[in-house]
């Protein structure tokens, strides 16, 4: 018996549900329905498939939901859908949420503990939702001497920068929010925003620990941006393009990591530093400077920064996949759809079951190639994210001087080695713009 509700009876529960539904239907049909009809009378209706969308037609959608498929298809081709749902913010936020869950459970297993366990019955799967609700419900405290407009704006700017980064990532052929020819340059530009937002947030808090953390973050991001950019030049040389979709498409037979492993390693290390993950989490080193530049953020402002951090993590991992691991390319494991059934319908004795509008959707938009590409992309991204999370359980934090030494002495040198490898490959005629010669 449940401890929370000892008097719980299933029959009563069903009874109350039914009475709720009855009351809802009654009130809606008596009051809500006439109001909706009156409102619809004054609104000009859109034309869909050459038919005027009258209320009557809208009701036929209720009787036959398959008639909405052309509307769904046209909606999926809008920019709005791409930005909000797939492959933009919604998709990235979903993967980021999954990342947080996997991180907590994996780290817990590594450290001989359970991790989130109770929230959501199964292995604490709803813990993230609980944490989010907690953050939303908390009071936002602004330091008295803070520069308030900038302090308010910084978390929003952080999420906006991360979302701009996400928008540049091609997930499957044609599935990218912003398919710009200067894609990689745009990525560098967006990455350049993060230190600015960080130092603005840290400085505007007008407090000592955030200030030290912000300075550290500035050091770290600026000094690691140089090896980051240099390590990606090799890929640009061998592909001859800056367009991320074309770079991904050029790896249809082999990923660039086979030819440019040094660049991939340098990019991976700089990625850890840009993401402020252990062992490079100096800007948030808690035993030295409390929480670094996040110290004065509270409530949902902190939540927004966390959201931005994980979006950024997803975007960096996806960038690694697109540049070095071949993006959406991979073996075709998704089977072809049974198109003759879709086109001609399924004959069930005397009746032929057929869904109109499904055929254009499956041939133009959601093809098996697209699903396979997304699947490959997600699998590779999750793998890269796993390797980004792993050092947290193994390494302690390093020191500022060691970090700068690593960035300026070792990684820049290795990035140049990578450029020379790429040059050698191009001049030897093995690789050239567009792939294998």
């Amino acid at each position, binding site marked *: 018996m449940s401890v929370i509700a000892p008097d719980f009876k299933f029959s009563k529960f069903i009874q109350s549900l039914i009475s709720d539904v009855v009351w809802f239907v009654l009130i809606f049909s008596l009051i809500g329905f006439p109001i909706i009809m009156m409102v619809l009378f004054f609104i000009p209706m859109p034309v869909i498939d050459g038919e005027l969308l009258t209320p009557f037609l809208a009701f036929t959608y209720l009787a036959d939901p398959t008639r909405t498929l052309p509307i769904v298809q046209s909606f999926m081709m809008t920019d709005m859908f791409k930005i909000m749902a797939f492959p933009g913010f919604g998709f990235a936020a979903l993967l980021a949420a999954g990342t947080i869950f996997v991180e907590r459970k994996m780290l817990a297993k*590594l450290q001989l503990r359970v991790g989130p366990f109770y929230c959501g019955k199964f292995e604490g799967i709803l813990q993230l939702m609980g944490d989010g609700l907690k953050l939303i419900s908390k009071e936002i405290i602004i330091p008295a001497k803070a520069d308030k407009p900038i302090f308010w704006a910084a978390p929003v700017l952080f999420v906006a920068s991360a979302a701009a980064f996400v928008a540049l990532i091609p997930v499957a052929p044609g599935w990218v929010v912003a398919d710009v020819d200067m894609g990689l340059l745009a990525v560098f530009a967006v990455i350049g925003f993060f230190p600015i937002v960080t130092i603005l947030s840290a400085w505007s808090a007008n407090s000592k620990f955030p200030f030290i953390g912000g300075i550290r973050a500035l050091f770290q991001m600026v000094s690691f941006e140089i090896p980051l950019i240099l390590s990606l030049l090799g890929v640009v040389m061998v592909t001859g393009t800056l367009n991320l979709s074309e770079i991904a498409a050029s790896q249809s037979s082999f990923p660039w990591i086979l030819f440019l492993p040094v660049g991939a390693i340098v990019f991976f290390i700089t990625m850890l530093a840009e993401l402020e993950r*252990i062992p490079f989490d100096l800007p948030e080193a808690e*035993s*030295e400077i409390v929480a670094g530049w996040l110290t004065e953020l509270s409530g949902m402002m902190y939540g927004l920064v966390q959201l931005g951090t994980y979006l950024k993590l997803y975007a960096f991992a996806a960038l690694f996949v697109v540049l070095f691991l071949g993006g959406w390319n991979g073996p075709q494991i998704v089977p072809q759809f049974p198109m003759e059934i879709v086109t001609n319908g399924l004959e069930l004795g005397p009746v032929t079951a057929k869904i109109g509008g499904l055929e254009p959707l499956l041939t133009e938009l959601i093809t098996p190639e697209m699903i396979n590409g997304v699947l490959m992309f997600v699998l590779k991204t999750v793998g890269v994210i796993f390797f980004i999370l792993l050092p947290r359980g*193994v390494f*302690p934090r*390093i*020191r500022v001087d060691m970090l700068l030494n690593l960035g300026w002495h070792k990684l820049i040198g290795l990035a140049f080695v990578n450029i020379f490898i790429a040059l050698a490959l191009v001049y030897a005629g093995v690789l050239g713009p567009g792939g294998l010669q």
Partner: protein
Amino acid sequence: MTNEFLPPGLALQKADEKIMTLNVGPQHPGSGHMRIIVQIDGDYIVACDPDPGYVHRGEEKMAEYRNYITNIPHLERPVIHDSCNVLYPYVLGVEDLLGIEVTERAKYVRVICSELNRCIYTMYWLAIYGIFLGHSTMFMWPAGDRELLIDLMEKISGARVTHAHFVPGGVRNDLPPNFEEVCLRQVNYFEKRIREYAAVFYDNPILISRTQDTGVLSREDAIRLGVTGSVLRASGVDYDLRKKEPYDVYEELDVHSNVMKEGDSYARSKIPWLDMLESCNIIKQALEKMPKSGSVRVKLKPNPKGKGLNSVYKRVESGRGSLGCHIVSDGKVEPYRLKLSVGSFRNLIALPYLLKGEKLGNMPSVYWSLNYWPVEADR
């Protein structure tokens, strides 16, 4: 009011644009129950002023109002994780004052409890050292593996943390039946487990590069500053009270004292780990040599009194170095004066010397490598 009468940190100082004063603590994840006032120039620490006293409880004064037996439960409070070792010098001193002779078996039980408690304390210390360096796995593993030994102490004394197990005249209870077998099994597993820490922590290249050659305390400075315990031994001075001034049955056991010459944070953090391995060794020896049966407690008169005006000073090697207890008796049921001389406070004295000229990022590792327990230092 001039500056010299104000408590540290409140004194007005001449403003220097280059120097920033940071109050690390008492509300800070990297300080413990104390405050370290750090002045930094860029990333370098130019001056450091430890400010303990936030958890002062007046243990010494309290002891003057309680008799020799009721002093036991509150005197172990300064370091509850190391409660047997904190009580050890007091109990030895009271036995000396009252003229009690302890049985052989009780002495062995005490040594076993003391070594188990040293490991429990050191594991807690190591967990915090790990998280201070940002190594969360090294926080969780020792905190979990401590449970093995805590379970053993629970079997012996009935309490998981504050045991109050040592009493003048022996220990409170005899060991539970079948204890030797269980203890040997747990300690063997514990030893195997802490040897695994080397792979993830002590041999970790990032940890070595972070802690080596930071906060170096030379042999001469260590002796001059009067540090004790693992800090002294990490600076190359072979001074372990279990060997130098053996108490109870330590002279019959083969005790090896671990010494390292470097005197840096790495050596200071490795010595307690080596000590834990040595403690496992001592426990195994003691389990072997212990008389299998016999009394563990001498019957005392109720409310024992000291004999006339008398004073006694006893010290033991605790988890944080030498821990001394000076008891002055004037023939009454309670001590006239009791003074605890603790290793934590002696080690803290070295902190301003070590941090001067270090980078801010080295502060947690140097601070916690001093094997310091804020509550014990304040008493």
